């Protein structure tokens, strides 16, 4: 038994450090590539302050903030999915299932629909207004799901079912609005809904970073509680956990993280589902280990996807959410086939 846990722990640290190194490598690769190619030694020169003005502009003002956002959002979606799967005990749960992405998407589409002209030239305050709408939409959806599922407490199955219902309702409304749009705005909305890191400026990063980081750290701190909830209702009550309160709290946490991520990067659908699964198959179901691995994994996947998305048909871009799915599915399927 002891041998087992030691093995588990070393595996955990081994996984964490390899993910960390992979992320660093990807960061470097991603800094090199883009519409403007910058050679590796120029990147290094610029990073230590020896580059020319143009290189500094591209690296510091365009690429770095975008990459930081990708890392944050990837970690956030992963953690949010892991918490939701843990709390609802459903392997298919992810922020999308509870209507969070759709709620945010609907709010954004409604905004674009009523202020069509401002979408074409989004700047200044607009950069913050769109995410704000997304955030409001995400929370509206989550609160709606929670209240509709409330009946002397919230049971996980009912929560998922109600989530499906609310999600279906929101998608319907979304379709109606989308179809009434003019083709240009429609494409923009679609790109947003498929997931797209677009607000790549430092001020935007600063507006989101503290919140996402704080919430992620807090969920890591909370991770033992998820293990206890997973033991089953009666066991958890027996161990002294205030089940309903803890569950509500964790759900709120997951929603908050997902809401912020959607605000920054739109409805990236697959990441919240896939990252926790991959992590679980590498380090097992203990949430103290599962959550950090999920976070790094989510960050890595999104960074890779973003690098591919901005290069493969450059100068045009593929929405990162689409790339996430295409990139992560094969590995997900491989793991699905390999493990019991």
């Amino acid at each position, binding site marked *: 038994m002891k041998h087992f846990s030691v093995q588990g722990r070393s595996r955990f640290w081994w996984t964490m450090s390899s993910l960390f190194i992979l992320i660093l490598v990807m960061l470097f690769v991603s800094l090199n590539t883009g519409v403007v190619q910058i050679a590796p030694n120029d990147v290094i020169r610029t990073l230590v302050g020896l580059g020319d003005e143009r290189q500094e502009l591209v690296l510091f003002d365009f690429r770095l903030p975008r990459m930081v956002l990708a890392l944050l959002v990837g970690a956030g979606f992963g953690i949010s999915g892991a918490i939701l799967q843990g709390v609802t005990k*459903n*392997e*298919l749960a992810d922020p999308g*299932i509870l209507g969070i992405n759709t709620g945010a998407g609907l709010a954004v589409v409604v905004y674009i629909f009523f202020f069509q002209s401002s979408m074409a030239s989004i700047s200044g305050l607009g950069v913050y207004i769109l995410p704000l709408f997304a955030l409001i939409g995400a929370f509206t959806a989550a609160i709606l799901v929670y209240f*509709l*599922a409330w*009946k002397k407490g919230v049971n996980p*199955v*009912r929560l*998922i*079912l*109600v989530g*499906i*219902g*609310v999600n*279906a*309702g929101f*998608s*319907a*409304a979304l*379709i*109606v609005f*989308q*179809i009434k749009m003019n*083709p240009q705005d*429609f*494409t923009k909305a*679609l*790109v947003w809904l*498929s997931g797209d890191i677009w607000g790549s400026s430092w001020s935007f990063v600063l507006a989101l970073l503290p919140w996402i980081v704080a919430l992620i750290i807090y969920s890591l701190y909370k991770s033992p509680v998820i293990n206890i909830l997973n033991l089953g209702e009666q066991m958890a009550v027996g161990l002294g956990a205030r089940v309903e309160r803890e569950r509500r709290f964790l759900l709120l946490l997951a929603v908050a993280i997902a809401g912020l991520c959607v605000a920054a990067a739109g409805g990236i*659908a*697959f990441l919240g*589902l*896939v990252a926790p*699964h991959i992590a679980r198959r590498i380090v097992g179901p203990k949430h103290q280990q599962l959550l950090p691995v999920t976070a790094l994994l989510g960050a890595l996947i999104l960074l890779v996807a973003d690098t591919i998305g901005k290069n493969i*048909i450059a100068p*045009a871009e*593929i*929405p990162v*959410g*689409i*790339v996430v*799915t*295409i990139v992560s*599915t094969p590995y*997900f*399927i491989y793991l*699905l*086939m*390999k*493990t*019991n």
Partner: protein
Amino acid sequence: MTLSELEKSHIEGLTSRFFRAAIIFICGVAALIVSIGLSVTLGVTDIKLATVWQAVFVFDPELTNHQVIRELRLPRAIGAALIGSFLAVSGAVMQGLTRNPLASPSIMGVSHGAAFALIIALIFFPAVTNLGMTFASFAGAGIAVILVFAVGSFSKGGLTPVKLALAGVAVGGMLSSLSSAFSLHFQVAKQMSFWYAGDLSGTNWLSVQLLLGAGVVGLLLALIISRAVTILSLGEEVSKGLGQNTLVVKTLGVIVVLVLTGAAVSVAGTVGFVGLVIPHIVRFLVGTDYRLIIPVSAVLGGLLLVIADIGARLVNAPYETPVGAITACIGVPFFLYLARGERSGL
């Protein structure tokens, strides 16, 4: 309560549920016939019921109204009924097989496979015929199902319900992402999205014939395996313990889903919601016996889509609203009401 009393009350419960299902079924069929009648009379130009009668039984090719009824509205109403029932039955069979409340044609990747094939066909072969579209749709659905099934069965630990569902989500997600990428790149996203939300306007007699062909195979097979699905929905162990060959049941179930969903998508695109939610609603109404769930799902699914199609044509006339949006408007409140109830098991 003694054992025999328990048994008696169990049997009484079963018969009362059977009667309840029978009543719902009969009322459903009656409502379906009425709604098809309504669907034929209502539209941009309202047509009297007497004219409908004449158009069907004493057809006069000189009259426009007769032609509208015969060539447009009647096939469309019948097509809607068939597609609704196909999707509902597909969803029911899937939820039974995977024991997952989220299973539905779209979760399992079937709709996405069909839709992906159609998008590829439309982008690269713009002159594709109706029949060609149908074959593309079947091929796409088939490839998705084969992929999902292969991932499930080649994996260690075999074809567990969770694996099947996860593989479905993965394959479906992949295919729908590819569809989005293609439609964004070739700038056909807007046309696609209307069609992604369900579009019954292209339904003609050829599609109805096609649907009928698929329906005979798919619905009959669904009824034949309904008892086995009930047992399987109790769990793999129970099913094997009772001497059931679970692989055969699952394969037949997947064939049902493939045939029914493939046909439905080829005619109307991916109408969401019906396949996911109708089986839940039916389960709330008649319990967990799939011998009852499947026929009742067929009727209620058909009814929902016919009514939704009337709505789709009238809400914003003369423009059409995507029928998937209307099904959600009708079904979501009812679904939420039921989901809050006590019996939410599979």
